[in-house]
Each structure stands twice: as structure tokens, then as C-alpha cells.
């Protein structure tokens, strides 16, 4: 037990700071992905909710692709695909350099694609939960379409979509672990290094799992607060 504590301590001979750094990378990757994923997901949900069939079809194709591919494969496609694409483009214009894509950015892009395709479904079902009368009410008040969206639809949309989006956030947090495969020094990779050096794999991977659990618990607590905030208008009823 004492040995384990020494191994997990900070500073000399301990792996605490390495793992803390890994946690930081994991959390910041998830947080950095979230706004892009949410925005893209919202735009795709708007397209799916449109009355224009071609727009709906285009959005559905996007969702089908990114929900059907394994996240790991999406990650490799983005990581190697972008690298090869840039390299190819540079060779075309006559520049001979070796390009390496930042694994953080590649992970962010791939996870945002996956997240947005699921988030669009969450937003879409929230859109379906908002009656037409809300749009008509906005129109009757003389609000522009943008204003109706911003002040009438969006607040209700957030409330309706939040439970599903909360689940997606928890999934996103777990999916960041895949980025360790393309070399980002996240929680799983750092614990892997610690496990290999100290020959205590069970301890370190167990710690990694526990950290994910704690992150999930913190997120759940935060999410329930956000949900209470989103529901603040309901209390009066």
C-alpha cells in the first residue's frame, strides 16, 4: 500500500504529476471539442429540420457516415488523411517538407465530427418537441426569424435537448481516450507509460479508470445544475 502511495506521489519517484498532466490533456481535449461539436450539431439539426428535402438528405448522409464509422477509424482517417492531403497539396505547388498534424487537433476534429452527428439527433428531437405555435407566436409579435430562434425557440430547445446532450458529453469524455493511440499524452497514455516503467499496470490503469469515473461524477453533478438552470422557467407553472 505504501509503495503504491509512493508511486502515485508528486515529485521525485512519483507519477502523480505525470498523471495529473494526462488528466489535464484529457479534460481540455473534451472541453475544446464541445463547442465545435455543439455548433456543428446544431447547424446539422437545422438542416434536418428544414422543409427542403435536398438539405435534409445532405444532413442525413453526414450523420449516417459519422455514426456508422468506428470512432477509432474516424480518428485515423482524419489524422492520416489530413496529413496526406496537406502533403499532396504542398507537393503540387512544389514545396518539399514533411508535415505532421498535431494529434490534439486531429483528435478534436474527429471527435467533433462524431459528437456533432449524435448531437444533431438530440437537437432534432428537441426541435420536434417545440410546437408550431411558438414560431407563430414569434411571428405575431413581429419578431424576425433570427429573433424568434434566439429568444423563443433556443431557450426551450436547450431545455429539451439537455438530457441527451449530457449523455453525449459523458460519451465524449470517454472517447477522448482513443486519442492516446495517435500519440497524444492523455490520461490513458500517461498511465500506460507509468505502468510500463514501474511494472505496475493494474495500479496505473485502475487509477486511470477511477479518474474517468470521478470525471463522470463531476460532470453529472455539473449537468444536473445546468439542467436546473435550464428549467428555471418551469417552476412558475
Amino acid at each position, binding site marked *: 500500500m505504501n509503495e503504491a502511495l509512493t508511486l502515485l506521489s508528486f515529485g521525485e519517484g512519483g507519477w502523480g504529476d505525470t498523471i495529473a498532466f494526462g488528466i489535464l490533456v484529457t479534460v481540455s481535449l473534451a472541453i475544446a471539442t464541445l463547442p465545435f461539436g455543439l455548433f456543428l450539431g446544431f447547424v446539422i439539426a437545422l438542416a434536418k429540420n428544414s422543409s427542403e428535402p435536398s*438539405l435534409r438528405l445532405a444532413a442525413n448522409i453526414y450523420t*449516417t457516415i459519422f455514426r456508422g*464509422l468506428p470512432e477509432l*477509424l474516424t480518428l485515423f482517417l482524419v489524422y492520416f488523411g489530413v496529413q496526406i492531403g496537406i502533403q499532396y497539396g504542398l507537393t503540387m505547388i512544389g514545396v518539399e517538407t514533411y508535415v505532421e498534424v498535431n494529434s490534439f487537433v486531429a483528435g478534436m476534429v474527429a471527435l467533433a465530427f462524431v459528437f456533432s452527428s449524435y448531437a444533431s439527433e438530440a437537437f432534432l428531437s428537441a426541435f420536434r418537441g417545440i410546437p408550431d405555435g411558438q414560431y407563430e407566436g414569434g411571428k405575431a409579435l413581429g419578431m424576425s426569424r433570427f429573433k424568434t430562434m434566439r429568444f423563443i425557440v433556443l431557450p426551450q430547445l436547450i431545455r429539451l435537448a439537455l438530457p441527451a446532450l449530457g449523455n453525449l458529453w459523458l460519451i465524449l469524455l470517454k472517447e477522448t481516450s482513443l486519442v492516446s493511440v495517435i500519440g497524444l499524452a492523455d490520461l490513458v497514455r500517461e498511465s500506460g507509460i507509468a505502468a510500463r516503467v514501474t511494472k505496475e*499496470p493494474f495500479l496505473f490503469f485502475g487509477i486511470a*479508470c477511477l479518474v474517468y469515473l470521478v470525471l*463522470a*461524477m463531476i460532470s453529472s453533478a455539473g449537468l444536473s445544475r445546468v439542467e436546473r438552470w435550464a428549467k428555471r422557467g418551469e417552476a412558475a407553472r
Partner: protein
Amino acid sequence: MIAANPAAELKRPPAPPRRWTNARILGHVLMALWIVSGASLVYYLGSNVASPFVLKYWPNYIDGFLVTLQIVSLSLLIGALLSLPIAAARSSRWIIFSAPVYGYVYFFRGTPLLAQTFLIYYGAGSFREELESVGLWFFFREAWYCVIFAFALNTSAYQAEILRGAIQNVPKGQWEGAEALGLSRPVTFFKVILPQAMMVALRPYGNEIILMIKGSAIASIVTIYDLMGETRRAYSRSYDFQAYIWAAVLYLIIVEILRRVWDKIELRLTRHLKR
């Protein structure tokens, strides 16, 4: 009362002309983009069907495909068996059963599958002597067994929650009605409750299978040559990006076929609910 004039009734007003709204233009542009990229993908793959890469690696892809199917079906089956006692214990009134099982389910649903696989495959090495003394080392030494074990435990937690949710979703009146008819509790459960629960559980089960197919790509990280593993091996040997494109096409085909078949099954099984 006005007499109905059949000629006037048939004459409908003409449909309003479909104007080129911004949404319509955008939709057509995006569709054009999809069609162009789809066509160039088909052209790219078509022009590579007889390339040295495909001729050399397609047997590996088929092997990998079969390994993926084996991993998914084995772990789903074992997970389904495990999920029955887990779901029963989880909804038990006795806290000595429900509390530890709640912890189990929370652990496997709250941590990444990758970390779980590492914990079992690499973590077993920490207990090598103990495992050797009970004769289980052969099991944890093999990546194949570890992956099946990890995936089965993971999916059992998810499946137990699906099962529990579906059974709880059946209204209480169904139990009471069966009791009023004098049916015993096991008969009630298997003949009245379970069929209705399965109907509700069908969609989440389908999603779980798809998640498992996608998650099984993780097995490639611990040296299993499934579809993803063969893809990575082919890429690391040839540095040809089409390795990943073929894999993407294969995965999309599996998932899409499964999703459509599942929709058909659901439509068939719930046809008595359609009005």
C-alpha cells in the same frame, strides 16, 4: 345548402411554384458536393480494385472481417447471459445485491472501453503469480481471451441496464392482470412481461450491437487482427491510404445493413401496435 358541383370539386388550385429559396440552393449545393465526393470515391476504389494493394491484402481484410464478427457475436452473447443475473440483482430489493451491482454497472458504463481493455489485458500481468497458481494465467496471457472478457463485461453492464429499464417500463397492471388470471409468477414473467419488455428493448439492443461493432475496433490496439487491426497492418506495410478507405467502406456497410435489418425486424414485431 349549396349543391355540390363535381366539376368544381375536381379542379384543384395549382401547386405553388417551388421557388429557389436559400435553403433549396444550399441543399442542392451540398448534395452536389456529396454526389461528387461519392462518385470520386467510387471511381478511386474502382480504379484500385485490381491494384497490387487490393490483390495483396484482400484476404487479410476478409480474415479481419470474420475476426470482428467473432469478437462482436461472442462478447454480445456472453454479455447477454451475464446481463440476466446483473439486471435481476440490480432491481433487487435487498441492498446487499443491488449496491455492488450498481457499482459494477456504474464502473463499466463510466470508464472508456479502451481503459477497461488495458486494465484487464495489461493489468492481469500484475497478478501473474496468483493467476498461475490458480491456473488462469493461460486465459489472461492471450489478448484474444482478454478482449472477449473485457468486451463481454462491458456490454453486460449496458445490456443489464437496457433489460432492467425495459422490464420496469411494463405497466404494473400487467402483473396485476396476470395475477388476477391466476398465473404463477414465472409464467407471468416469461409469457406476459418479457415479450412486452423485449419490444421496448429492441431499439436499444440494436444500438448496443452497433456500438459493439464500432467498439470492437479497439481490439486492434491490443494486437488482435480484426478488421481494424488488419487495416493498420496493411497501412503500416504499404503506406497506402486506401487501406483506411476500404475499412471505412466495410464498416459502413456492416453498420448500415444491420441498422436496416433491425428496422425491418422492429417493424414486423410491433406490427400489432400500428394503427
